[in-house]
């Protein structure tokens, strides 16, 4: 198992390098000029110096190498310095945004909590709803509950978040006035009232994202439970005289969770992608909104870094899912 994990880790490196190269080459083709906003009165030789200051003077491969060094070597050092008060990154050049001329990572660190709160909470809520639904619909296959569950999950698949988002806004904000319309990111939780406000403003985005998660995971849970419910060991457990509750919730559930856990791990990066849209709908000021803002402002270093971070999440969670599958299921050993 350990050798498999190590092999997968080593294989992830060329994958990540390839993805960062693809993103870099795509952005190389960008027609936008970062100097377009500079006034015309600035003489061309000064402009040329500004261009060099942005790191644009060198050929592509050197810039790619520099970006790699900045992302994988300098930025971790900055993080290390920040945590332990050391000075490894002193004087080293970080990835600088063209938009506000500050380090990209500082903005990411500012924005990340908003995204993590909304995305993380919605994923947990979605899983909490999905698992009981999946278990019960498999246990009562073809019952009314199961049919209704199938229909609702089909709807959850088909209705995109950019429709459910405005729909719940119309329903709960415009008509009923229960929840605030726009997510206030500057809001700070200091006492009970502000905590309730934070809760109220988070309900709608979490609900919308959780619907997608619920639809997907409850389907997997149901299918996996159905696979296990007819197995011999279940009959044995019943024959031993175990109670129905123990049979379903201990014996069957534990075995059916194996594929579901990996699906949960695999689905997390996709939720981050979906959060780009949800953040836009509810004006949550997270990294998705940062990416869209950077794309519209032609801020290539930010775009490159953020896109790569999304790719990193995907590769990382794929790896976790693979390893988890092997750890949880003794029948599957890769080596």
């Amino acid at each position, binding site marked *: 198992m350990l050798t498999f994990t190590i092999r997968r880790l080593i294989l992830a490196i060329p994958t990540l390098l390839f993805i960062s190269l693809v*993103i870099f080459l*795509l*952005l190389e083709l960008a027609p936008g000029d970062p100097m377009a906003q500079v006034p015309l009165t600035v003489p061309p030789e000064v402009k040329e110096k500004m261009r060099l200051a942005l790191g644009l003077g060198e050929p592509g491969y050197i810039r790619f190498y520099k970006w790699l060094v900045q992302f994988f070597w300098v930025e971790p050092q900055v993080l290390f310095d920040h945590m332990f008060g050391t000075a490894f990154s002193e004087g080293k050049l970080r990835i600088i945004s063209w938009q506000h001329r500050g380090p990209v990572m500082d903005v990411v660190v500012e924005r990340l909590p908003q995204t993590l709160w909304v995305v993380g909470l919605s994923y947990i809520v979605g899983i909490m709803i999905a698992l009981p639904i999946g278990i019960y619909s498999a246990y009562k296959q073809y019952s009314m509950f199961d049919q209704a569950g199938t229909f609702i999950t089909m709807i959850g698949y*088909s209705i*995109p978040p*950019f429709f459910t988002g*405005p729909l719940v806004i119309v329903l709960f904000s415009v*008509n009923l006035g229960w929840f605030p319309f726009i997510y206030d990111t500057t809001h700070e939780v200091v006492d009970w009232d502000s905590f309730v406000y934070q809760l109220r403003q988070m309900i709608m985005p979490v609900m919308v994202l959780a619907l997608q998660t619920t639809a997907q995971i409850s389907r997997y849970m149901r299918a996996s439970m159905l696979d296990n419910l007819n197995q011999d060991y279940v009959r044995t457990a019943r024959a031993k005289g175990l109670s129905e509750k123990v049979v379903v919730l201990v014996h069957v559930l534990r075995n059916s969770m194996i594929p579901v856990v990996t699906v949960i791990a695999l689905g997390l990066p996709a939720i981050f992608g979906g959060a780009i*849209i949800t953040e836009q709908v509810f004006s949550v000021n997270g990294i998705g909104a940062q990416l869209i803002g950077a794309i519209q402002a032609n801020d290539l270093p930010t775009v490159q870094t953020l896109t790569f971070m999304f790719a990193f999440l995907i590769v990382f969670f794929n790896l976790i899912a693979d390893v988890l599958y092997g750890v949880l299921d003794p029948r599957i050993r890769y080596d």
Partner: protein
Amino acid sequence: MTDTTNTEPTTPPHSQWYDVWHQFKAHKGAMLGGIVFLIIVFGVFLGPLLWPYDATYIDIRSRNQGPSFAHPFGTDQLGRDLLARMMAGGQTSIAVGLTAMLLALSLGSFVGIVAGFFKKLDGPLMRLTDLFLALPILPLLLVMMMLFREPLSSAVGPERGIFILIVVAIGITSWMPTARIVRGDVLALKEREFVLAARSIGTSNKNMITRHILPNVLSPIMVSATLGIANAIITESALSFLGLGFPPDFPTWGRLLNDAVQYLQDYPERVFWPGLGISLTVLSVNYLGDGLRDALDPRIRGR
């Protein structure tokens, strides 16, 4: 000896596709989905011929109207009829969905068949598929839209340029599941006796693929086709919704939804129709795929 007089078939002989259709008919959700999808397609493509208003006709005096007999869906902030815009938007959305699906499908089937059939290419092609699966699709699509919008628009005109861009972008980022499924099926097919028989009478690789392999992997391809349409329509709408799809005056369902969201506080009902259009199309196509999967699976068929 057994009595051979009774072995005459009671039903007239029929083709495989008759069986498929028979099974498909029995799946109520799939039939309903198919009918709804056909109604939507005919509605958006034939509707504009019957409807008097043009999608781009601006009547500033009758702007921001609610539903009425003249305008069943109301009018927008420039007085354009929303029913006409819904139909025009549906044409684009469905056209994008179908073309992008065809592109993704042909790419995916090609990669899948080649990888499954030629052992030497299997490794590299599947690594390529894995790499593509690890790409962050939505951020990359957004980046592609940002980069190539201007050059393509100036080369072939704004609408056609964006259309080509969106179709190609969606096509080359969504072929991977098809490729994987097709490869798996081809690998299983290659071990079957009829392939061996065909090989023994000297069938060339080209004929082998077109005559024997391709017809047998048609069913997974058709199922991924329906899922591909749904996926492409949602992706296009998402791009338009984020403001990185078609130009503002060019209606698509995602664009109409985006426009409606900007007037959410004053005219919340406008959100409803474009969203319903997207959701209903995707839902019907998903049900269609569900039924198709059952109908094309010979193990389920006949039950």
